[in-house]
Every structure is written in structure tokens, then in C-alpha cells.
């Protein structure tokens, strides 16, 4: 059994069409601690001790957020700047996070093709999120490929929200019960659409 921490960052949850129902699903799951960062720190005054204690108490960290300028909303950066302290997350004696797993669960505006070598962004999403991956490396954590829904702005109109929320629920539940093939997932480009290839077969049956 793994303990999963979802750190949710959405500055306008009232207008969210995909992330809000995703977070609601996360809140309802056993073994998942769901934190709404903007609710806890409306003035970005992040409590370092609280956040470090949370990290220590969990095995898998999920940043759940919409993609803002090829990154997360500002509070995630502030959180990184304050919480990942020298002597805690990295540097001398900074090994408190070693061995943990971390991933981004994010939504994008553009179509899937945009996130490819030939697309308008000239790169896949995982490459664009490289600062998250390098941060994980430096802290001794393993970065897992981003769980993503592209074209989130039209997902509601195209009836794709429910499916994605269910996939998120499946992913989190599987993480809690150690049924995700993390080695495989950490080598993938993205966790997208059908998650079956990343779920451990023996446990599914």
C-alpha cells in the first residue's frame, strides 16, 4: 500500500471544467491525501513545515494542475522554492525525499498533435516539463510520465470529461494499491487514454 499525495493547484476552481471534477474524485479516495494549495495558502504564504511533513508521510506525489505557460500555476513554483529546502530535499543531509515517486497530472488546451516534434510546440509534453523532472532527479525521486488530457477546453462539449475523471480515479487507486508498473510508467512519454498497459496484469485479474 502506497500513500498518495495530490497537490492541486488551480487559481480559478470555480471556472474549472476538468480539474475540479478530477480533484473531487481524488478527495473521495481512500489512501489519497488531496490538498488544494490555493485554498490552503490564498496569499501564497506557504507553511514550509506543514508541507515538508506531508511529503515525508507519502510515497507518491502528484501535482495536479492545468498547464500554464508550459508549467504549473505560480503557487507550485512558490511551493518548490520554499518547501524543497537545502538539507531537506537536496544537498548535505537532504535525503528526506529519496525513493519517492512524483508526476504531473495536467490538462492542456491544444490538441495532442501540438505536443510532438512536428507540432507547433516542437516537443512532447514530458520534454517541456523537464524542470519538474530535473527537480525530481536532484531530490532523488523518480519522475513518472505526465498523466494528461489534451484539448481540455473542449472536453466538456465533446463529452470527454467523465472518461478522464474515471481514468484519474483508476490511476490513483492503482497507485495506492501498488498496481502501477512504475518502472514502465517512468520511461513512457505520457500516461494518456488507455492506462491498461501500465497496470500490473497479475493484479488486475
Amino acid at each position: 500500500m502506497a500513500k498518495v499525495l495530490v497537490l492541486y493547484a488551480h487559481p480559478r476552481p470555480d471556472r474549472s471544467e476538468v480539474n475540479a471534477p478530477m480533484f473531487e474524485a481524488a478527495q473521495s479516495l481512500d489512501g489519497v491525501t488531496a490538498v488544494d494549495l490555493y485554498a490552503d495558502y490564498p496569499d501564497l504564504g506557504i507553511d514550509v513545515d506543514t508541507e515538508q511533513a506531508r511529503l515525508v508521510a507519502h510515497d507518491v506525489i502528484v501535482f495536479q494542475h492545468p498547464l500554464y505557460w508550459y508549467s504549473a500555476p505560480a503557487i507550485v513554483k512558490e511551493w518548490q522554492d520554499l518547501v524543497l529546502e537545502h538539507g531537506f530535499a537536496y544537498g548535505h543531509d537532504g535525503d528526506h525525499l529519496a525513493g519517492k515517486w512524483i508526476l504531473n497530472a495536467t490538462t492542456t488546451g491544444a490538441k495532442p498533435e501540438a505536443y510532438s516534434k512536428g507540432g507547433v510546440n516542437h516537443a512532447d509534453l514530458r520534454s517541456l516539463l523537464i524542470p519538474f523532472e530535473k527537480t525530481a532527479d536532484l531530490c532523488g525521486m523518480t519522475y513518472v510520465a505526465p498523466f494528461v488530457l489534451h484539448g481540455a477546453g473542449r472536453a466538456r462539449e465533446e463529452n470527454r470529461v467523465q472518461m478522464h475523471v474515471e481514468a484519474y480515479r483508476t490511476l490513483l487507486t492503482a497507485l495506492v494499491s501498488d498496481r502501477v508498473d512504475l518502472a514502465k510508467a517512468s520511461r513512457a512519454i505520457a500516461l494518456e487514454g488507455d492506462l491498461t498497459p501500465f497496470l500490473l496484469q497479475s493484479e488486475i485479474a
Partner: protein
Amino acid sequence: MALLSDAFVYLSAAVIAVPIANRLGLGSVLGYLIAGVVIGPVLGIVGSETAEVQHFAEFGVVMMLFLVGLELQPSVLWRMRRQLIGLGGLQVVGTTAVFTAISMAFGLSWQSSMALGMILALSSTAIVLQTLNEKGWFKTSGGQGSFAVLLTQDIAVIPMLAVLPFLVIGPAGIAGSRPDGELADHGGSALATLPAWAQALVILAVIAAIVVAGRHLLRPVFRFIAEAKLREIFTATALLLIIGIALLMDLVGLSPALGTFLAGVVLSDSDYRHELESDIEPFKGLLLGLFFLTVGAGIDFDLFFGDPFFILALAIGLIAVKFCVLYVLGSVFGLKGADRWLLALGLAQAGEFAFVLFGFAGGAGVLEPSLLQTMTLVVAISMLLTPALFILYEKVIAPRVVSKSDREPDLIDTKGRVVVAGMGRYGQIVSRLLMTDGFEVIILDHDPQTIENLGRIGIRTYYGDATRPDLLHSAGLSHADVFISAIDDREKQTSIVEHVAKTYPDVKILARARDRHHVYELEMAGAHIALREVFEGALALGKHALIELGVHTFRAENKARRFKKHDLEMLADLRDNYNDGGVDASYIDAMRAHSATMFEIMKAERDERHERTERGWTPPPKGDANL
């Protein structure tokens, strides 16, 4: 001394019976009725004088219509128009038609039948609203539907009063409408000698005068009175207003109830609305109570025991017919499951207005005295049965229906409602913030000057002393989600919070505190959040001082933030200590220790000596091997 001994008998009956009835879940109306039965027919303490007392007590109905008028802001009416006209209108018309047909089948003349139909179509506002509020059903779709129907019925009373005199059987003509209530004894219209067109003209002029005076003259008058800060004079003014209008209406031959209702509607938009409401409310309550007592005392037991099964059958038939009409209309207007049952069962009785209208119809010669006696008895019994219907709904129907069908979202506005006490420098900021986010804020203040000034910039404030429980009640605290206590008097502030916490346990209380000790006091009194009024302001000024002294803005910001965090920790740590023994030696010691620690910590942060306390955006140590 006859007056005093009568008063003693009525009051004792009420004081004994009403609380017992309430405790048993029967409601106060039933309590009064039973008390009346006991002192009248059962014990025979009161007798022939009840008719006179009843005339006097009918003035309570005039006051009740004034209060109904006060509730009817044009905007509220507009929002409820579909339910008022549709559901309410069809209930009144439909039930009237059915009862008229049934009465004619019993062999009554069409005039009597129609009078009876109209009167029986009304339900008991007093019983139903009381019960809906007590049980917390007011905000459900069924409760809102019931309220709309009751409101329509209350308004319908006015045209009924106008129509009834035209339904006179036989040759006795009508000279204008006959005023109801005790004023009737003072003789007919002073306009009787004028030609018809002149009468009509005078009546129109009087109505126009009430509207114009209500809009433009009463406001400065009330303001003048309010500035005198003599509560009883304000009450006297309110009573004077009602009695004056009643007399005026009487003079021109119109119903006093109609006049005061009109005055109520005109004043529903005024700043003094809640104050007027809570001033008149006790008089209305007592007079209506007296009225119910006299109805109980007037019940003819000989008549009942003459043919108990016939009377009971009539009462049950009455309830069955009203239930059917309401149930059908409820489904037409989209009420589902339990809500439809609540509407139909709750409004199935005849109401207190029936007694008034019976008296009126009897006096005008519309209904036979023997029929009146029987029907008064039937109406009273249908009201006596109402609590049983509510119990049937609560215990038998609601549990079954609700679990089956998904509850419809309740009708009433989903946005939270806020009541703010005190609109001084503090309350203004709080209220304006809430209003910018579209919340409905009801503000109370006792300074006419403040009210005037705020009115000029478009902020609506109601006059009244927020420390009075009755005023908080009429401001709608029982329907509020949040109460904000923002007055500047420390002791009053605490006692308001205490009262609200006790009386309205579901309301979240946010309070302005004078200082740290006041925070503890307010929390003990039941405040959910209490904030020191000057803390944030002083902190902001301190931050600016740091900036002026050359500290970088962002560092000053963080310094202030950390100071606040430490201070709030101290507030929390000292709470138990204060609550144990107030400001004693141990409290002072604890506070001194805390201040010293805090100073040490913040000084250490400043000197950057203390490795783990200087947090945030600090570079890794120079020469760290891993980088």
C-alpha cells in the same frame, strides 16, 4: 375593575395553555383556541362579553395585514409572480369554485354559497408559517409553494372584503362597504351624503394620499422620531400610524385592513421597515392571541354534541376537498414527492381569516346565523386537526417519499444570506466587500444620520437597535447563513453574539473584537470567528514603517506575515490560560514568556544566526559539495 379581571382571566388562560400546546408540538394558535374552549364553554368563566372582546381583538387582524404589507416588497412580489398568480391564484379560485358548487348542492343560495366558498378557500397563515419555520421546512420547495399560496390568500382577503357586501341575500341594500372590526361601531361613512362620483373621487384621493405620504412624508417623520432615541415614542408613532389610517379608512367607508395593508406595502421599501415590524409584532401577536381565545370561547359545544358526527364529517370533508385541489395544483406546478404532500396537507385547513370574514358576512347579512355557527365550529375543528396532519406528513409520508424520489433542489436563493449589525467604519467595509460579490446583505444600524448618508451612495441600511432580539428576528436572522456583529460597544457586542449563538445555532457568527481578551470572550459567547479590529490595520502600518526605514518591500511583507503568525500562535496558546482564570498572574507570566520567545525568534531571523528559522528563498550554503 371588570377590565382588569377580564384581562387576568384571558392572560392566565393564554399563559397556561400556549406554552403547553407548544411543548406538545401543537403550535400557539391551537393553544389559544384550547385555552378559549376551557375558559368559555368548559368552565364558563367568560361568557357574553366575548363578542365585544372579539371586536376589539379583530384589530389584531388589521395589524397583521399591515405586517403582511411590510413583507411585500415589490421586487419580492415580482420574483414570486409565477407561484403567486398561478399556484396561489388557482388555489383560491379553484377551491372557491368547488366549495360554491358543494354548498349549492346542499341547497344554499348562490350568494351564500359563493361567500362560503371564498371564506373556506383561505388557509391558516398563522398556523402554517409558524409550523414551517419551527420544523425548518420553510426553504423547501413545498414550504416556498405554501408561502406563495398563503401570501396570495392574504392579498385575496382584500377583494373578498370588498365583494362580500354585494352578496347580501334579500332586500337589505348596501351603502358602500361596511368597515370591519371594532371601528364598525362608530357608525357609517361620513361621505354618505355625497353623490357617488364624489365618494369615489374622495376614496381615490385618500388612497393616493396614503401612497404619497408613505413615500415622502413618513420618512422624515420617522427620522425625526428616531433621532429622539426614545424607543416607546417610536412604538407610539407606529401604533398612531396604524390607528390613524384605520380611522381614515373608516371615515371614507373603506376597510381599515385594506388601508393598513396599503400603508405596509408603501413602507416595505423604507429603512424603518424592520423596526416597524418588531414594534407592531407583539401587539399583533397579543391581539391575534386574544382573537383566537375568543373564537375558542365562542365555540358552541351544545351545537357540537347535538350532532358530533355531522360536524366532524363536515370538517374532514373540508380538509379532503382542500387537500385534493392543492395536490392537483402542486403537481401542475412541478412540485414532486414530499414537497407536494407538504403543500397539500399543510394548507388543508381553513384559516383564522375565516372567523373575521364570518363575522363580517354575518354582520352584512350574507350568511344565516345558524349556518355561521355551524361553519365557525367546522373551521375551528379543521384548525384543531392541522397539527395531526403535519405529524402525519413528518412521521409517515416524508420518510417514505423522500427516500424514493431524488429531492428537488430547494427553490430559495442558493446564495448565502448575511445579516450585519452595525454599519460604522467597520461594518461598512465588511458589507461593501460582501455586496461586491453579489451577496444579499441586510444591514442594521441605529443612527439615522449614518442611514441617510449611506442611502445617498446607494447602500441600503435598516434602522434599529441590533441588540434587540426581536429586531434581529424580523431582519430575517432565522433564514441567514452568516451573522456579522460589527458594533463598537464591547459589552453589547458580546451579548448580541451570545443571544444569536443560543437562538440561531445554524448561523455562522463572525464578530469584531476590541482586543485579545475580547476575542476570548466572544469565542466563549459562541462566535465562530472573532478578529481584533485594529490588528491587521496596525500590522499594515508597521509594514509601511519598515519600508520607509529602507527595508525591501517584499522583506517587510514577509516580516509582517511572520509577526502575524507568531502573534496568532500566542493568541491560541493563551486562550486556555485566559479562560481558566482571566488575567491572573499565570496569564501574565505566560504572555511575558511568549513575547520574549517571539522577540528572540524574530531577532534571530534578522541576524541570520539561527539556521532553521531563516526560511524561504535562502541560497544553499557556499561550497556545498553536492552542487
